[in-house]
């Protein structure tokens, strides 16, 4: 301690300052996550979680976690890392799990031309929560070590908003002249659509794909497309909501209040050529689905929480005061 050249009083004030800072961060609802043991808590929402208003005050109940993202540099193609952090929040209503992601992106990118890519975001869960923790890199080969991925894409959001496939040739090249498209309504000539590739279907009902993977290169549509949500770009930031029923059929991760699983996050910035593995990605966080009753492990913010916080602050201040007095009053060591 002498190396730091601190007086005893200042030494005592250091932990106190940290304590106060921690309390203030807790009040602000911010959990500054680094790479170790990040925790995302999904409190039980009091009131309805809006699926249309991403700026609803219901999200004030959810503590936010700023998750550090990094470049994907494990497998080809490598890339990403341009989006440094994504702010994550989670809620549940006993039936559905809601995840809200938010990150800065100065451009709103849709997949349009041959060299343009769309913005996107994804969350990833182990397919067997609580039993095994697969690699956060798209899971492992063993059947019980796979992952379930929900991927939202900006272009699908636009398709839903405009009620058409937004990247039409007319939109791309409005002045282009084509005399004739033979068999225009025959689906066989829109091959990927004809084989029901989810990427290609024009009339989407959700901007989010439900996918499964067991190691790199195996990402595949899940049989059931039941993840819903909404993305909105406002003032240089994307805010994206993803939600699904917590009770799932066999093979997909079922969640319930009071349990903990893992979640990894990824963000793609289309303007920087991000697609596939070229993304900004986190490792696994712990995702805690809080029990429904207040104080039962959740961070449902109500009167009880406010009271607890006030008591905590009073206690911390009292302890700090005593430490300070002790440091000042006690004679220096010889």
């Amino acid at each position, binding site marked *: 301690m002498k190396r730091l050249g601190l007086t005893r009083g200042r030494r005592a004030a250091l932990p106190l300052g940290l304590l106060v800072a921690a309390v203030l961060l807790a009040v602000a609802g911010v959990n500054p996550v680094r790479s170790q043991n990040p925790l995302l808590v999904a409190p039980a929402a009091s009131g309805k979680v809006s699926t249309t208003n991403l700026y609803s005050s219901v999200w004030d109940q959810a503590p936010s976690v700023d998750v550090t993202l990094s470049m994907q*540099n494990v*497998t*080809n*193609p*490598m*890339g990403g890392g341009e989006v440094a952090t994504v702010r994550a929040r989670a809620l549940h209503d006993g039936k559905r799990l809601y995840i809200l992601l938010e990150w800065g992106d100065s451009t709103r990118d849709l*997949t*349009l*031309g*041959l*060299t343009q890519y769309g913005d996107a975001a994804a969350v990833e869960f182990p397919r067997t929560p609580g039993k095994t923790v697969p690699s956060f890199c798209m899971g492992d080969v063993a059947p019980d070590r796979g992952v379930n991925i929900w991927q939202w894409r900006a*272009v699908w959001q636009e398709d839903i908003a405009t009620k058409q*496939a937004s*990247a*039409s*040739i007319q939109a*791309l090249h409005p002045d*282009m002249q*084509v005399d004739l*498209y*033979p*068999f*225009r309504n025959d689906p066989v*000539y*829109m*091959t*990927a*659509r*004809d*084989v*029901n*590739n989810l*990427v*290609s279907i024009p009339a989407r009902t959700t901007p989010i794909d439900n996918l499964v993977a067991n190691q*790199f*290169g*195996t*990402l*595949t549509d899940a049989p059931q497309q039941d993840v819903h949500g909404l993305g909105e770009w406002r003032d240089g930031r994307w805010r994206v909501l993803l939600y699904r029923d917590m009770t799932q059929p066999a093979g997909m991760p079922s969640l319930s209040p009071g349990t903990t699983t893992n979640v990894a996050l990824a963000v793609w910035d289309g303007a920087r050529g991000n*697609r*596939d*593995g070229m993304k900004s990605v986190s490792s696994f966080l712990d995702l805690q689905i809080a029990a429904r009753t207040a104080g039962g492990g959740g961070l449902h913010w109500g009167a009880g929480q406010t009271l607890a916080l006030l008591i905590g602050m009073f206690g911390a201040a009292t302890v700090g005061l005593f430490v300070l007095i002790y440091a000042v009053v006690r004679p220096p060591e010889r």
Partner: protein
Amino acid sequence: MADVFNWQLGRKMRYRFPEAHPEWQFAAVFNINRCIACQTCSMACKSTWTFSEGQEYMWWNNVETKPYGGYPHQWDVHLLQMLEQVNPGGQTWDAANKDAKTAPYGTYQGMTIFEAAAKQNAGQEALGYLPKDEDWTAPNLYEDTARNGTGDLRRPKPVSLPEHETWFFYLQRICNHCTYPACLAACPRNAIYKRHEDGIVLIDQSRCRGYRKCAEECPYKKPMFRTTTRVSEKCIACYPRIEGADPLSDGVPMETRCMSACVGKIRLQGLARLNSDGTWAEDRSNPLYFLVHVERVALPLYPQFGTGPNVYYIPPRWVPRPYLRQMFGPGVDDAIARYELPSRELTAVLQLFRATRTVIFRYEIQEGPKVRDVTVGGKTWSLYNDTVVGFDKRGREAVRITVMEPFYERPSDRYINSV
């Protein structure tokens, strides 16, 4: 990552997957000397496969004019430049280190696009770039722009054989259905596969998610992104015809649309039986085997890229050799020498080009009389009117054709105005 053998380079090279070669390999020979750039092949393909919305710019078959043309623009010189930047001055061949089966053109000492990517450590499987929208705007930009020996296009020098001072030629391009496809290695989703039965490389339209890594890393730029379906598509080698599933095929392999529509009779397509190491199995009476491995008049396009392309070209006689050696490897000089004074057998086999749309698996030559002797470059060359017979996969006769065009002289007094 695996070490695989590439006979076109006469050596092993690195590739994402270990060797697993198909039983048969889709292959073709294009005789550049004969092409008139009528684009009938391009239109045959277009009107069969790429006439729909989102495919407007897709020419799975295109004919471009060298040295300036290219579709997408500068596709080849762009990549050659990138390769040079990664391995300056290193793209050389040891042409003396040859073996008829395993190194017919010598040994490549430079870097393939796979090796260059590894050296560059840029997090991708093969060196490549994604063409911009404008690179796809005009399939025949610089069409018929000749390269002038003086560098002055306004005052071309007079022609002098065997190489023109002012020159150009047409390059006919489809997907090469490569032995080691860069598109397949590049696809992070494993949505691209090479078929065991015929070596045709396809993009699974149900798995592709439109990442365009194939379009970026294919050196020949044949996978193309379709904005309307948001996935990539590529030449499918008219596989229903190769399978004999087309109603016209009579149950045996039939040549693709671009091949069978060729007006200039420059194309011959077939299937080559492979050994387990990817080399061609001895098949002396298969016309493709004869052209590629016996006479060696047909050469792969940019073999140094390392993908093992399966369309082989008879190089144009009149083009400066350094240019051709860069494009087709060190086998160019021998190939042109053999083509300029073709052997009796080669003269006959060249008649099979476009004589039938049925894939020829075997040919026979029935010797005919000598027609005449010709002196070429001080050497005497004899022309024989032999008959060549081609057989389909089931061994049935598919075509019979003579070296000399059948000639009938009609009596002049029988028809009015000789009609």
